[in-house]
């Protein structure tokens, strides 16, 4: 068990966006969070990585209580994330975008920077090296020198994943990794996610594309109106009456 929440909840002006959710993310597995629009999936991610402070409940990561820690400290403990829309720096190259992700493991300070001390040079080279290696890992080393804004959607998603991976997180949160890419590309991204898990990083994702979720996830957690309504392996979730009810009128397989 890598991460566990206990009655986790947040309300925005009386509206319970996430309501007393208990969830467990097992190490080395893929956990998927699904649910209709507005079910609180993204809000849950924002709680897990510290963007929102929960109004109730606790979060434990590797047994430590991380509730209320600022996001940069949560990131340093090993929880990394991507966003629904890529927020990369469009005019900078893929490599430059990714290398800053390793910054948290470096110690270059203002004086190192201004005086170009050996440490500043060494750490910069190290960041570049790590970034290059992780770009190879996600399968796009040849795109390293190109500005991110010029890359196709799927490649941008890979850069974003590389940025989240370069710090060597223990848990990677992927917020709709396959949004806005076609079926072939979705399959390729699913393959990448499987590869990430096989290399030792635990993955938790929010996704609407059910086929991808069913094929990837070891455990699926279903949210509706901020509450967890089901949890289990894919085949069990498929036949869960509460889940079918929640999705009724919505899409079951998109």
């Amino acid at each position, binding site marked *: 068990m890598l991460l566990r929440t206990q009655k986790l909840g947040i309300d925005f002006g009386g509206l319970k966006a996430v309501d007393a959710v208990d969830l467990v993310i097992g190490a080395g597995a893929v956990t998927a969070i699904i649910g209709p629009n507005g079910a609180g999936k993204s809000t849950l991610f924002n709680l897990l*990585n510290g*963007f929102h402070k929960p109004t109730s409940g606790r979060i434990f990561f590797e047994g430590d209580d991380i509730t209320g820690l*600022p*996001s*940069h400290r949560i*990131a*340093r403990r*090993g929880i*990394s994330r991507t*966003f629904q829309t890529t*927020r*990369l*720096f469009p005019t*900078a190259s893929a490599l*430059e975008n990714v*290398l*800053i*992700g390793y*910054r*948290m493991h470096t110690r270059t*300070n*203002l004086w*190192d*920077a*201004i*005086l*170009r001390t050996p440490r*500043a040079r060494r*750490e*910069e080279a190290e*960041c570049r090296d*790590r970034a290059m*290696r*992780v770009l*190879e*890992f996600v*399968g*796009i080393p*040849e*795109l390293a020198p*190109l500005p991110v804004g*010029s*890359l*196709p959607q*799927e*490649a941008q998603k890979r850069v974003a994943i590389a940025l*989240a*991976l*370069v*710090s*060597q997180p*223990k848990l990677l949160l992927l917020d709709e990794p396959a949004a806005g890419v076609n079926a*072939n*590309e979705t*399959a*390729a991204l699913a393959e990448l996610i499987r590869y990430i898990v*096989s*290399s*030792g*990083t635990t993955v938790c994702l929010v996704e609407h594309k059910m086929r991808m979720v069913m094929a990837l996830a070891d455990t699926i957690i279903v949210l509706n109106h901020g509450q967890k309504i089901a949890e289990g392996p894919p085949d069990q979730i498929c036949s869960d009456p509460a889940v079918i009810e929640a999705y009724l009128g919505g899409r079951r397989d998109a």
Partner: protein
Amino acid sequence: MRVPTTRILWLAALLAALAFPFLTDNLYFLSIVITAFITAIAVYGLNVLVGETGQLSLAHAGFFGIGAYTAGILAVRFDLSFWLALPTAVAVTAFLGFLVGMVALRTRGDYFAIFTLGVGVVITGILDLWEGVTGGTDGLIGVPPPTRIGPLTFESLEAQYYLYLFCLALTILAVRNLSRSLVGRTLLAIRNDEHLAEAIGINVGRTKRLSFTISTSLAGFAGALYAPFLGYLGPSVSGLVMMFNMLLYLMIGGAASLAGPLVGTLLLMAATQGLLAFEEYQLLILGPLLVLSIIFAPTGIAGLVNRIGQRLSDRKTKPGPSAAPSSPSPKNRARPSHAPPHAEAGN
């Protein structure tokens, strides 16, 4: 390619700057260029915060004023030598900048700009009202020029010119190293997206405070050079027009670029000398100029030149039709052969 070209340009600029006093005996020109050098140092400070970190501070001229008045008051009222007054003024400004930053940077975006606008007004107000120390509206008169250090004296304008040129070169070197370092990249990451920066483990609050302190230190440094050069100070050194001018130089020259602040400051200060006869009405032209440049050339002169340079080098390196990067198909994507990134994970 581009790196040697820019290096040659910088070298040429340095040589031209070194030769300039020999090419003219017009002391008026020389003093304008010195003023531009000093102002450019402050604009480089503004660039760190506005250009690289993406935070619009409207208190920058205020900190320039603090640096100038601190150096001026130390020299006039305490007979401190320039070489002690200068670092003291920088330290005082940096410290005040740090304190103001602690409070101001709790706000974001629009609120930060509004807050710092208020800070700027308060600073000017204090310089204006604290008559016993600052000389009030009449200003601080009789700030002596830089005192001698070792064998070097600065009585002649030419000598002062080289002193200020040295300070500017030092600033540019420091700012260049900074912006190319991991620290500089951290600032850019914050400008790009604060949430993303936070999510990759950057302490956004602390980094912004650092950026603000660097920026105010440079404003203080410039101010502390300005006081002994000009010899007198009035509260308007920290006023809204000064603030506007600095933003104008930065935006026209090109924010977040190394050459931008210098180019913008030199060019516009030289150009506005022609408008000097209409000093009050300069803003009638400069106001719209700023607006136009933001609408049509948001990256400033440096951005335009860069784009032209890039297009030229593209033409040289890519003879055929430009090979647009296409996503490699998932089928033939080579599996990486090196160790996965987790090989040495752990804290």
